[in-house]
């Protein structure tokens, strides 16, 4: 009789071990997991003086440069970036106001997004800082993400020949990413 009780005890414990359960959980919530990340990265920078303009002609008032931004056109970027904020800080010591144009082009050189930044004139002793923020989202973002390069045009209102000063650009981009299943 005692042995039977012991056997019963053994069986009961084994059954207990195997009856462990998982409850009050919902593993389907994995579908709701969303990674929302905000990355800040430097964008482009430059420091130009009047020589950059006059190298192309004494009265030249526009200079351009281009760089690829291949990552923008990638599938991973276009699927996961939901907003991009650009911040531009222009420090101008030319006594002349300027304008910066940013043309984001695709591989066929079609403009997918464009922005223009007016830059206040300054002077050599008191450079003037002009800050500019551009937020790109929704439909604008769809077009923007098709770009693979950016053309930067810097335009002076008058000739900079023999004018002291420089234009210093610092910029950053804030990428808002949303990764989900």
């Amino acid at each position, binding site marked *: 009789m005692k042995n039977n009780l012991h056997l019963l005890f053994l069986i009961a*414990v084994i059954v207990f071990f195997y*009856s*462990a359960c998982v409850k009050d*959980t*919902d593993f389907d919530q994995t579908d709701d997991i969303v990674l929302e990340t905000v990355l*800040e990265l430097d964008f482009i*920078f430059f420091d130009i003086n009047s020589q950059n303009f006059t190298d192309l002609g004494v009265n030249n008032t526009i200079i351009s440069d281009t760089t690829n931004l291949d990552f923008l056109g990638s599938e991973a970027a276009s699927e996961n970036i939901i907003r991009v904020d650009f911040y531009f800080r222009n420090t101008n010591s030319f006594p002349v106001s300027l304008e910066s144009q940013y043309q984001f082009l695709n591989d066929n050189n079609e403009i997918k997004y464009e922005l223009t930044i007016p830059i206040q004139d300054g002077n050599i002793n008191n450079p003037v800082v002009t800050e500019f923020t551009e937020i790109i989202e929704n439909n604008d973002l769809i077009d923007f993400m098709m770009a693979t390069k950016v053309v930067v045009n810097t335009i002076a209102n008058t000739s900079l020949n023999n004018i002291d000063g420089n234009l210093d650009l*610092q910029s950053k981009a804030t990428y808002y*990413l949303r990764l989900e299943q």
Partner: protein
Amino acid sequence: MKYLLYCIFFFWGSSLFSQNKEVLYGLDETPQALLLNPGTRISNAFHIGIPLMSHFHFNGGSSGISAYDIFQKSSVDINTRIRNKISELDGRDFFTATQQLDILNFGWKNKQEFYFSGGVYQEFDFIFYFPKDLALLAWEGNSDYIGKKFDLGELNTRGDLLMVYHLGATKRWSKKLTIGARAKIYSSLLSFSSTDNSGTFETRISESGNNIYEHIINSNLSLNTSGIASLSDLEDSSQATNKILNRAFFSGNLGLGIDLGATYEINEKLTASASFIDLGAIFHSKDVESYTINGEYTLDGIDLLFPPLGTSDTAPPYYDDLIDEIEEAFEIDTLYNSYSQLRPLKTYTSLKYNFGRPVGGDEGCDCLNMGENQKYNQSAGLQLFNVFRPRGLQFAATLFYYRKISDYLTFKTTYTVDSYSYNNIGLGLVSNIKMVNFYIIANNLQWYSNFAKAKSVSLQMGLNIIIDENK
């Protein structure tokens, strides 16, 4: 992806215990106790484990999180819970999975009273330390962490799949002292480790003044693998499985190790024991590939130069040059040098107090054999456990109560405390019905009504044939 997450969370638990078999240790009714202390005082004349069934052990765990923490039904968004957990965990937290399967286990006592035991078992052991900084960077980005150095050295993981061939001897040298040793040959089937990393990623306000920020990465990362590189050339998983299995018979990377243990019966009531398990190393020389990335780079954006170009000229390849510079700075070096790897050394120590009804003789009391030979049907005591892990010692302390209910039923219950969990209750049952020895052990019983809340899952069971000395 979803099922992968299921698996990860199912196997989550407190990994301090992943190598700790606190219930099985000192449970002398099972021959497998010899694998935790070759100096166990064993009363068998012979045992043989049922092949593939004599010992199965699985444990999965994490030091700081349970499946319930993340997947509980709650009005709080799951992403908020994950974010909260990331902030709670730190670089010392880890996830582990350990599994052992006895292929063969046998033992016998010779005329000189040596108890020899040997066999073969397969083991899988994995540990992954939680890289908190990288998790934070992935989950939240760097925007709110300007000036913070994200620690790449938190990357720390190790995994081993191996076969262990072992032969040990146990001898009761005197009425007080039983000592034993076990020699082991390890045959590594697969191995990887990345445990010696350093480096940082930082976004800080520019000191050079070139741009707004400077993104500084310096890395000193390495990953050692053996037995893995050749698998990537195979066409399908069955070929890979066959290749891995072929290594089981001493054709993998071999290693040597030893277990040492002793039991000292201080007096009739008090018994002390200690053991060192897996004091050894594996020497990886076949199919070895190691990868290192050592580099430093400061990114501050794309510097436009506005060169005086004609209409037919193209701009300098700023972006491509930048990518090339980064790739050059963080070039992956592949090495094929042999390396050795210490096995995770485990130590057990125990002190127990024996009490209750004397057992051992035909009538309960082994009355012709009193003194240190006397056994009692109950004992209680303290066990300490250490395992050497890549980030140092992990420690656990266990209080236990043992009771031999009858000749064929014994149980041991444990209460284990470690740095992360203060309430792990374990229970083991051993039945000896005629020559058939069966045991089942589990821990974290307090969570059995809802395992999702457990930080670890552990189960051990086995079946042996035992011939007792008295028979």
